[in-house]
């Protein structure tokens, strides 16, 4: 009973916090209402007894929103704590698309004949879910993770404003390197 009430309460909070993202007029508030929405979803997943997935959702999303708030503030070029600004763009099309998607998904949920439970859940539901989702493609998924990390590093390296020739000179022999401010390892 308590679980049911908690689940529905979390669901309502998650949706409201998600809507608040577009209603509030500051970027910090928008980022962190999204974080609240995700935390509620993470707690719901905990209630579904997918403990690992639920806790990791909370972990990732809070960290992500902390970073996102920083980037939003950095790239918008205005002091957004002071300047109230609208969080929506191209209102009419966005509204039409989101209502259409919602109706489609809700219809799907209501029309789908959900199966009744057969058997009992396995001991380790997280491992079972992983097997079910990825199965024999686990190696591919693991490799994709590494490729993504390498892509990020490569992207940063390509985008870096100053390369090693700027730091160490044309013959790479200048020591200590010319940096705006020295780093902690003394390279």
């Amino acid at each position, binding site marked *: 009973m308590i679980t049911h009430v908690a689940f529905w309460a979390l669901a309502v909070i998650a949706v409201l916090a998600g809507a608040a993202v577009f209603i509030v007029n500051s970027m910090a508030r928008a980022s962190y209402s999204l974080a609240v929405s995700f935390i509620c979803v993470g707690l719901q997943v905990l209630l579904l007894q997918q*403990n*690992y997935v639920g*806790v*990791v959702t909370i972990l990732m999303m*809070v*960290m992500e929103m902390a970073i996102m708030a920083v980037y939003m503030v950095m790239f918008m070029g205005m002091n957004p704590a002071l300047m109230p600004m609208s969080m929506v763009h191209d209102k009419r099309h966005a509204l039409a698309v989101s209502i259409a998607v919602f109706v489609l998904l809700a219809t799907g949920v209501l029309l789908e004949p959900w199966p009744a439970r057969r058997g009992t859940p396995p001991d380790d539901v997280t491992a079972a879910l992983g097997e079910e989702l990825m199965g024999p493609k686990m190696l591919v998924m693991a490799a994709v993770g590494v490729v993504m990390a390498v892509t990020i590093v490569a992207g940063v390296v390509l985008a870096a404003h100053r390369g090693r020739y700027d730091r160490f000179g044309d013959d790479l022999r200048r020591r200590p390197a010319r940096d705006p401010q020295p*780093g*902690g*390892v003394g*390279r």
Partner: protein
Amino acid sequence: MSDPSVRVVAPLWVLAAAGLLGLLVLAAAVLDGALSARAAGADVRTGLTRPIGEVARLMRQRRRVTVAADTLLWRVGGAGLLVMAMMIVTVVPLGDWTLFDLDVGVVWFNAMDVLAWAFVWLTGWGANSAYSLVGGYRFLAHGLGYELPLMFALVAPAVAASSLNVGTIAAAQQGLWFVVWMPVAFLVFCMGVLAIAVWGPFSPALGPDVAGGVSVELSGVDRLLFLSGRYALLAAGAAFAVPMFLGGGAGPLLPAWVWVLVKTLALLAVFVWLRRHLPAARPDLFMEVGWVVLLPAVLLQDLLVAGIALGRS
């Protein structure tokens, strides 16, 4: 999934856990006051009573108001650290008892410590003051340096015990504590605890050079919550280190719960003592250390632990 060596107690014991955490906070604050008084050449007894006087002063102080502050986010950030500490303590077994026997307790700790990114930054942001915002960004810059090493430090005990449950990890080190054969992971974990408590070397976010940084405009109850939240995080981090690295309730003569408290207090005292003895690790310096030194070191530690765990099984 739950470990038979740990018993879940009734939810009402949450109050007792909160009281215990409060006592640890008080002990840490009194110790810090005494050490500060001794260093300043004053009577140590004046330092002992300082935290109590400070609490009384802050309870009566009026709130400072700043122009165009984001009050909601500011208050949430200030009170958040204390909540974080409480959530961490719920998964720490006190001897045989635990409040919340989560099968992924280690990940839970990690999820809670990441909340510091949000709360400290929000406290710095909400006041709408340049210096507190500088402090908030300094914390995030520290976070980029310490978070990944901390995550991989948490991996080592979990791999060795092949479980993410805190009680199981404590039970897995009967005989040999994990701190003995994974010292790098332990040190990096302690560093992470200091960092989430914005303590000692990780206090540039509250530095005197920016007039108190994140806390510059905090006053009254908000300041009290923020400061006690830092002590609470230190205490919670020390308490979490006990089942992870220090053998949990293992020890001769005394009952297990007493040993957990003794070890927690000892580690907490070291944390408090470190504050005055270590200079600040400014984020511009620490960032490189975190990525170039600590991350590879703790990854090697994980590799070593994984190898040993594989050999033993």
